[in-house]
């Protein structure tokens, strides 16, 4: 796959695209998830623990999602840097790229035992895929229409748009915490600025992990940090007849 950037944006393209992907106004359907906080609040999580919940997600699900995105980005980026030299591995056929994405998807799914969490990730992936194939048509034949979880789509966009791996990791982390914060404001009356502070704290606590995650290349080495209660809550949430968020 060629490295495609939105040429009109010039050298700042990657930064602009990161901002676009982190923006809740991007029409990708991400507003349907609370990242488990709605279910958590029904199962004993209290408002005062939500900052710690964001940090716990940084140590568990965020590592899995960010690792999946980084490995996808690596797999779809043809030009690699080896010992400081750029090495061109030649272009891969779309079919080969699809097969690699399927393998990465299998590794992600094995780290996501909750069917409810897999389902929401694939729904969010489908929403983001529509953005991806519109802005980067070359991604269309590489990405199957169904069954791609959001981090695989995000990693594909990062490859196409030239987003650096470390920034991709930070994007996954920021988006995860901000999703919890935005949902909290709809679920519990609280000071919006306090929630914003939690997001920054969680991102700061996560920063020491960024460099290691950014170097991942092997799908089998994607982190597998489990969070049994988050999985349990996701299953409970999926069966609720009345809820504000799907997940």
């Amino acid at each position: 796959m060629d490295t495609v950037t939105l040429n009109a944006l010039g050298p700042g393209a990657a930064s602009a695209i990161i901002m676009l992907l982190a923006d809740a106004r991007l029409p990708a359907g991400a507003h349907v998830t609370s990242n488990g906080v709605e279910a958590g609040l029904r199962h004993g999580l209290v408002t005062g623990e939500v900052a710690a919940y964001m940090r716990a997600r940084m140590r568990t699900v965020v590592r899995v999602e960010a690792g999946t995105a980084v490995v996808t980005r690596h797999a779809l980026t043809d030009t690699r840097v080896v010992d400081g030299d750029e090495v061109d591995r030649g272009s891969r056929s779309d079919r080969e790229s699809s097969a690699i994405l399927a393998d990465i998807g299998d590794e992600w799914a094995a780290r996501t035992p909750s069917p409810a969490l897999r389902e929401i990730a694939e729904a969010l992936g489908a929403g983001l895929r529509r953005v991806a194939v519109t802005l980067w048509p070359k991604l269309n034949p590489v990405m199957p229409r169904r069954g791609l979880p959001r981090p695989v789509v995000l990693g594909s966009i990062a490859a196409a748009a030239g987003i650096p791996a470390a920034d991709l990791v930070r994007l996954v982390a920021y988006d995860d915490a901000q999703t919890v914060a935005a949902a909290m404001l709809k679920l519990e009356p609280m000071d919006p600025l306090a929630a914003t502070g939690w997001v920054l704290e969680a991102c700061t606590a996560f920063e020491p992990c960024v460099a290691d995650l950014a170097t991942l290349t092997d799908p089998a080495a994607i982190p597998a940090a489990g969070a049994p209660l988050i999985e349990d809550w996701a299953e409970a949430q999926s069966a609720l007849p009345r809820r504000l968020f799907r997940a």
Partner: protein
Amino acid sequence: MTHIAVERVAGRKLPQVRLTPGLMQPRLISRAAGGRAHVAIVAGGAALLGGDAVTIGIRVGHGCRLIIEDVGGTVAYPTNAAESRWDVDIEVGAAGSLIWETYPFVVASGARVRRSTRVRVGAEATVHLRETIVLGRSGEVGGALRSSTDVRDCAGRPYFVEDLDVDGTDPLPGVLGSASVLDTAMLFGRRDEAAGPTAGDDVGGGTTVRILELARPGTIARAIGAAAHESHVDSVWQRWTRPTE
């Protein structure tokens, strides 16, 4: 290293069972035609002390059926020294089956333990495992446990990969929260046909057993709670291991 291997031998009715003792001692309970064997595991001494490294290898040959039964639970004791290790490596050959019946693994306050469970599931094979983790003896918050599980088929395609990192002195909301018991039954190679995709079995005591259907044929059943006698997956485990074996 403790080793348990069962194999069919051409021309013989009963399977060959090879048992090698380590910190854990395997004992043959019975063998039967059709490649069946039943083995018990007893602790060779006071396990699990700081610096102890238990290694258990299990090989189930083509078409064999092995049942392993632990004779008691395990307590990981407090340590000022090195962490203790509990490493299990399982390979089940084509059309084989393994049931490993275990008791709670208790991580006492002050203990530091690393567990790893690696499983390779052959074609048409089924594997049933149980892992009951209890943080703390009575009145304790419990120590630190890192437990990694990596289950794949012979081609390396994954069924279930999980690294659990818990510490009774640093409970994380969303991981185990204030719960001290995580009981898990794992089935690989086939699905739990009796359960719907997100069915919860109420086992009383306010605990719900959550049934997680994996993306590939396999099911994880979990109960998370405050005490082992009320947060358990016994009913699911019995459904999986009793009827057809």
